[in-house]
């Protein structure tokens, strides 16, 4: 699009704008659709960004932590725990190793057995938290040494359950991105329908304009500008409401889990502001295509 056409699209031409009569339901439909879609796009964007953050956090934090479980008779448990801690502290790549206290283990089991669990009377394995250094330890070598020196120890590096969680978070992020694309596509389809309806309803206006020598580009521009501005206005309202909705959601907390982290952080609050111009761009492309096709079909 030339600079002149872009300027005309933005600034407009009061006389040209009056040539096409204001059309009722297509104006409302365009405003509503672009507003609703922008509102949904804000949440899809928030979901996508939150999922991305979660995937990164899980991948990063859990990858550096492992758990060593000591399954031994009660009389040997303390000795094996000490042996395991000694072995771990000597292992290159292990930043730290710490045995969970009885209270910490009771707290971990509380959701299943209640807070008053007499943990000393139960055959609960002793847990040791292992924090990996940089570079990390050799997992295979560590397992072999543990097998030889601490027979009751089982090393769990969380790979089994961490991978599907990270995959799930990344899938959620992809779904959020796909949702935004679908929203853009649905917006384009609805605005195309509305533009076609407006062009059909104004067939006589188009006939008159052609009769008096209007170029097809002039006629198309009159419709395109109107729909683009409506889409821009509707999307701005939708984004405003969507951002208020996201802002009103509870802040991230450990208790609330994933849902309370659904929102924008820092500069990401600026991202939804891109939605109205992108919505206007989608409307511009959809209406231009619809108008050119319609005018081409009319003889």
């Amino acid at each position, binding site marked *: 699009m030339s600079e002149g056409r872009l300027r005309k699209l933005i600034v407009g031409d009061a*006389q*040209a704008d*009056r*040539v096409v*009569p*204001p059309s009722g339901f297509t104006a409302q439909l365009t405003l509503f659709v672009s507003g609703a879609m922008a509102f949904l796009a804000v949440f899809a964007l928030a979901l996508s960004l939150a999922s991305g953050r979660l995937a990164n956090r899980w991948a990063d934090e859990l990858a550096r932590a492992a758990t060593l479980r000591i399954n031994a008779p009660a009389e040997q448990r303390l000795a094996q725990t000490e042996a395991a801690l000694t072995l771990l502290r000597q292992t290159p790549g292990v930043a730290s190793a710490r045995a969970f206290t009885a209270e910490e283990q009771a707290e971990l089991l509380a959701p299943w057995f209640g807070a008053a669990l007499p943990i000393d009377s139960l055959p609960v394995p002793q847990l040791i938290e292992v924090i990996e250094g940089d570079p990390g330890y050799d997992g295979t070598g560590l397992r072999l040494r543990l097998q030889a020196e601490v027979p009751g120890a089982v090393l769990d590096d969380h790979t089994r359950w961490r991978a599907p969680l990270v995959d799930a978070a990344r899938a959620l992020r992809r779904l959020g991105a796909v949702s935004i694309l679908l929203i853009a596509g649905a917006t384009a389809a609805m605005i195309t329908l509305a533009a076609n309806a407006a062009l059909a309803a104004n067939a*006589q*206006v188009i*006939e*008159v*304009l*052609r*009769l*008096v*020598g*209007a*170029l*097809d*580009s*002039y006629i198309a521009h009159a419709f395109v500008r109107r729909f683009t501005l409506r889409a821009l206005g509707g999307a701005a309202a939708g984004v405003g409401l969507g951002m208020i909705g996201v802002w009103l959601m509870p802040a991230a907390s450990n208790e609330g889990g994933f849902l309370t982290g659904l929102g924008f952080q820092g500069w990401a609050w600026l991202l939804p502001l891109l939605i109205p111009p992108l919505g206007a761009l989608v409307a511009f492309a959809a209406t231009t295509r619809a108008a050119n096709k319609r*005018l081409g079909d009319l*003889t």
Partner: protein
Amino acid sequence: MAALNHGPLKLTGCWGKTAERKQGTVVIELENVGYNYGGGELLSDVSVKLAPGSFHFLTGPSGAGKTTLLKLCYGALTPTSGRVRAFNMDVQGLDRDQMAHLRRRVGVVHQDCRFLDHLPVIENIALPLIVAGKDLAQEEANLRELLNWVGLSQRADALPPELSGGERQRAALARSVILSPDVIIADEPTGNVDWEMSQRLLQLLVELNRMGKTILVATHDMALIRAAKKQVQARVLRISAKQLIQAGADL
């Protein structure tokens, strides 16, 4: 319309100006033109030349193809056979933009006038200027003069549905000449008006012809043609049995 506030009139009459006539050239020419409507042949082997500054009436019974012939002249319809030329251009070969420029040189008055009902009369008359990107502020004097010429100065701000039949026809005529076209084509301009108004419209067309415009009027009003022939040298063409013939003294 802010640009069209009432102001002093300047009788420049530039809407009446016509490009310098080139003797011997043809403004519109139909050469062996045929047109089929839904399988049936409406016009066959029609040939006619409109010279600059000439005045033609086109007659024939209802359904004979008068409107079709007019539409062929300004490119609203494409002939199924033969060739239409306007201003030395092959009309069938024009693209959409070239066709729009052709329409600016041919003013058309439809029987039903075809207005934009949401715009006042003055903006409807100014429509060709608007779509041509002209600055209406600079054209205001011409517009006022034109409104005065067609007797619609007092109706400038009325909406088209508020006009009488005669007022609509005069407004359509004003719109057709605002860009100072070389040719004016009118389809039954007096079809919905009384005798007095038809004489007034005829007078306007005669004045335009005297300014040098080429006029082509489709009508089945023989009294109008007789009245016109007293004022201008008008050629009468009749569509009969799909053919175009020169009408004789039987008028």
